[in-house]
């Protein structure tokens, strides 16, 4: 997960400082411009210019992505609106194979000459680089779909909601938190609309409209006498939904010892009120005694552990070594998959990859190389059974088709393998959060995501959270602080003894998963129900400086 765009290293304090400076991935525009949609017929004409120009220079394969990427950020703190930003990034990215090598070029000049020149540059780069190849690119076959389209099934386009309504919501959230005892609150609404057009020499012309939204806040409370401070971040999830995400219904709420948790939709005002109370409780929480604990992990926390310890190591590009220089490789090497008996986790552990789950961040009709998306098993009854692959990797797994995991974060970025939604399937037997806690003798119930770090082959990780509750003799006895758990991925997932049932299944996710050079962000969801892991090593993170 990439941190710099959002969760800044020094935590909430510096996060607040950074927010107005969130990188703008394009030019700013007026709100009403965001509602304009470019006619697919015009995009088809531009695409054909690129396809023909590349072919005439010797490309054996070409794909074209015309992207219009809209972002809206509403940023507030306490009683002030700090920033309202509308950005648009519009341009064309052209990827070719020539002499067996990939080449790519992108431009924001959308006239025919500039597009043709970019296509020619992509071919020139491919030809220049082909002398450095060890073997030519091998693409899995892909049939052309002709002219097709896909739209995210949202109920309310967030870009159509007046800015004032968004500002009023955030200011009311801030007001509630301040009245509840918070010293500071920063609240933000992120909204994204990707209008993507894909065309390739396979004969596809695919128009897609994708929406994402993430409301979030950070609350800080300071003890004026000691100078100690605590923070509590929102328990919302970034989702692939429209503005309806902010209209929570009773069935979207789950009541737990940590207060109300959210499923499907989010009540920001309610969460801010409970956060203001909980940040006060954190101030007086007991500092954890380090040692082994049974952990009961809420989906608002567990998504990030799934992301780092299962999502990343099953990305085939990492397994093969394509990310060795930056994001790293993977301990889930091909021999472990080939053995058909590599025991990634316990029998309770069933993890799927899914590019179609409604409302998830990764849901699209087609990926960024024109492959129709689907769902498949990654870990089945604890055994590693598959990876996440794209067209130029499919043959390595003996597949005759891509799994549709290709994505580029902008028209100006080259597409490559990115994570599908990777989710832990709920348990088959009825099991509630209360049941999980009742069954634990000595444990910690963790809600919300916090600090996270994992090694470059995904063995050793350390995670924190937002809220930690001590469990003794099957009961919650109070709040803890200074908690982080460290584990080895395989040992951790083999210590999974119970996963709650479908009624507790919820999606968490990341807006800013970082990978690649140059670094690209992607958005991905991870579902799970509350799960229990036995005897995990917990450390105390309290330190003293000057």
């Amino acid at each position, binding site marked *: 997960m990439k941190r710099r765009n959002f969760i800044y290293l020094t935590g909430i304090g510096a996060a607040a400082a950074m927010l107005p400076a969130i990188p703008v991935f394009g030019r700013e525009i007026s709100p009403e411009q965001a509602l304009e949609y470019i006619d697919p017929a015009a995009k088809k004409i531009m695409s054909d210019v690129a396809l023909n120009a590349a072919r005439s220079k010797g490309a054996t394969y070409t794909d074209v992505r015309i992207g219009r990427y809209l972002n809206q950020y509403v940023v507030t703190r306490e009683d*002030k609106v*700090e920033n309202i930003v509308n950005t648009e990034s519009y341009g064309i990215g052209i990827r070719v194979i020539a002499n067996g090598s990939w080449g790519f070029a992108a431009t924001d000049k959308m006239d025919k000459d500039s597009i043709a020149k970019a296509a020619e540059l992509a071919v020139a780069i491919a030809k220049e680089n082909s002398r450095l190849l060890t073997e030519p690119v091998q693409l899995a076959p892909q049939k052309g779909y002709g002219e097709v389209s896909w739209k995210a099934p949202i109920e309310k386009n967030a870009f159509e909601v007046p800015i004032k309504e968004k500002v009023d919501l955030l200011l009311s959230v801030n007001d509630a938190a301040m009245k509840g005892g918070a010293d500071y609150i920063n609240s933000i609404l992120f909204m994204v609309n990707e209008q993507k057009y894909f065309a390739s020499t396979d004969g596809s012309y695919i128009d897609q409209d994708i929406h994402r939204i993430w409301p979030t806040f950070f609350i800080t409370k300071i003890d*004026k006498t000691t100078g100690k401070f605590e923070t509590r971040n929102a328990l919302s999830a970034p989702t692939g939904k429209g503005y309806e995400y902010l209209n929570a219904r009773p069935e979207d709420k789950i009541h737990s010892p940590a207060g109300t948790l959210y499923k499907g939709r989010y009540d920001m005002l309610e969460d801010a009120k409970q956060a203001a109370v909980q940040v006060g409780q954190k101030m007086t929480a007991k500092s954890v005694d380090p040692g082994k604990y049974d952990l009961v992990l809420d989906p608002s926390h567990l998504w990030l552990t799934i992301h780092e310890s299962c999502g990343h190591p099953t990305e085939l590009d990492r397994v093969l070594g394509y990310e060795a220089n930056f994001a790293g490789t993977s*301990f889930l090497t091909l021999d472990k998959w080939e053995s058909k008996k590599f025991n990634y986790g316990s029998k309770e552990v069933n993890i799927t990859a899914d590019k179609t789950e409604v409302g998830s961040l990764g849901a699209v009709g087609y990926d960024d190389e024109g492959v129709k998306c689907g769902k498949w098993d990654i870990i089945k009854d604890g055994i590693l059974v598959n990876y996440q692959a794209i067209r130029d990797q499919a043959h390595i797994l003996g597949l005759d088709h891509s799994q549709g995991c290709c994505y580029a974060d902008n028209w100006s970025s080259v597409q490559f393998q990115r994570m599908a939604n990777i989710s832990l399937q709920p348990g088959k037997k009825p099991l509630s959060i209360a049941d999980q806690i009742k069954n634990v003798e000595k444990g910690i119930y963790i809600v919300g995501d916090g600090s996270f770090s994992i090694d470059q082959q995904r063995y050793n990780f350390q995670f924190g959270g937002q809220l930690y509750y001590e469990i003794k003799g099957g009961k919650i006895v109070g709040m803890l602080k200074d908690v982080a758990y460290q584990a080895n991925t395989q040992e951790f997932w083999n210590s999974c003894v119970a996963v709650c049932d479908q009624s507790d299944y919820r999606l968490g996710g990341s807006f800013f998963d970082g990978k690649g050079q140059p670094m690209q962000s992607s958005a991905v969801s991870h579902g799970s129900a509350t799960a229990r892991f036995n005897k995990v090593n917990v450390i105390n993170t309290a330190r003293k400086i000057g």
Partner: protein
Amino acid sequence: MPILTKEQAKALLTKALSYSKAEQCEINLYGSDSGNIRYAKNSVSTSGGISSNGMVVTSAFGKKSGTATINEFDDASLEKVVRRSEELAQLAPENPEFMPFLEPQQYGAETPTFSEATAAVSPKERADAVQGSLAHARENKLTAAGFLSNSMGYSAMMNSKGLFAYNKSTDVAFNITVRTEDGKGSGYATKGYNDFKKLDAKADTVIAAKKALSSVAAKAIEPGKYTVILEPTAVAVMLENLFFGLDARQADEGRSFMSKPGGKTKVGEQMLDERVNIYSDPWNTDLPTSNWSGDGRPQEKVNWIEKGVVKNLYSSRYWAQKTGIKAIPSPDGIIMQGGTKTLEELIKGTEKGILVTRLWYIRSVDPQTLLLTGLTRDGTFYIENGEIKFPVKNFRFNESPIIMLNNLDELGKTERTVSGESNANYLLPPLKIRDFTFTSLSDAI
């Protein structure tokens, strides 16, 4: 689009500004051309060329401001973008923290951020540079994965008060990981320059290859507190968290490691070892940066930490005015004063310790103490009696740069390095630190 000269940028901005009817108007203009080549498994993978540009116009009426942008620069487009920013400003809520735009500023001499050699780099030159790197890996039966990128760009700004600023720059970045064929050894090197001619991808590959070969068959030693020698790129990822946290408002508001009870800060206090001197200097020839910041403030030479005492914090213009401090912008390049010893000499003078090539996946654990966690990677070695004895398995650490700089044993010679986390360039020395806290072992190679 080719980058605009100072005169061309000035003419375009003057024309755009002539359409303004707002009380105040400020325009930023930028453009860049960049290219990159990426390789892995000893073969080229993805690469590309990207060209983009844009203009950002902010108009203000009282404390209401609006911003609009465009990337077409004909007369009609210029007028349209100015009008649109004015319409948005009229619709915007008042921002009590809005500051009037700056009067013309004195920026000092131009900084040497632009290199003609880098600006002229072609796809062929990039491929040529990588060819030597790949050849070395192949000849030694090693597996290389690397990334080489170069860019040239310009930025300019002008406002209705007469302020004008311009800078053009070039940038080259190269980093490489070399692994043994059996995956049991891994080494890394990274370099950043303004001038492409300074890059020697082959030489950096040789360093990474040597580390890969010598890190095979690593031994597991117990986690705990060790004397470590951090190479400059490992220093970078730890200390940049300290640099990023030197914000005045966060400190004043009580939510940073710089805060003290009762709204006070630790500015002026002896926080770190007295050999710690950290500053920024846009004119440093090894790390030149722009002589103005994005909002038009001059970038000057600033002493951030002097003899272990934090002397200055950066801040917004609003916060500086409210609190009566100098409004220093956050710096573009940071320099830590080093000693005279080379890395080899630091090793030679170490009785027992661990040499760390690279630290990875650094995350904040506790913002109050600046406690960070992360792992060693791509070359971790045990030192005994002044010599590297054997490679050791990678560790997870939990350590604060504040504690680290109080446990400072020795500073080596400063060199230009790149953060593997933020990609920022710094001038930093290797550091020898006592009692660095490793909390667990990792099987990762």
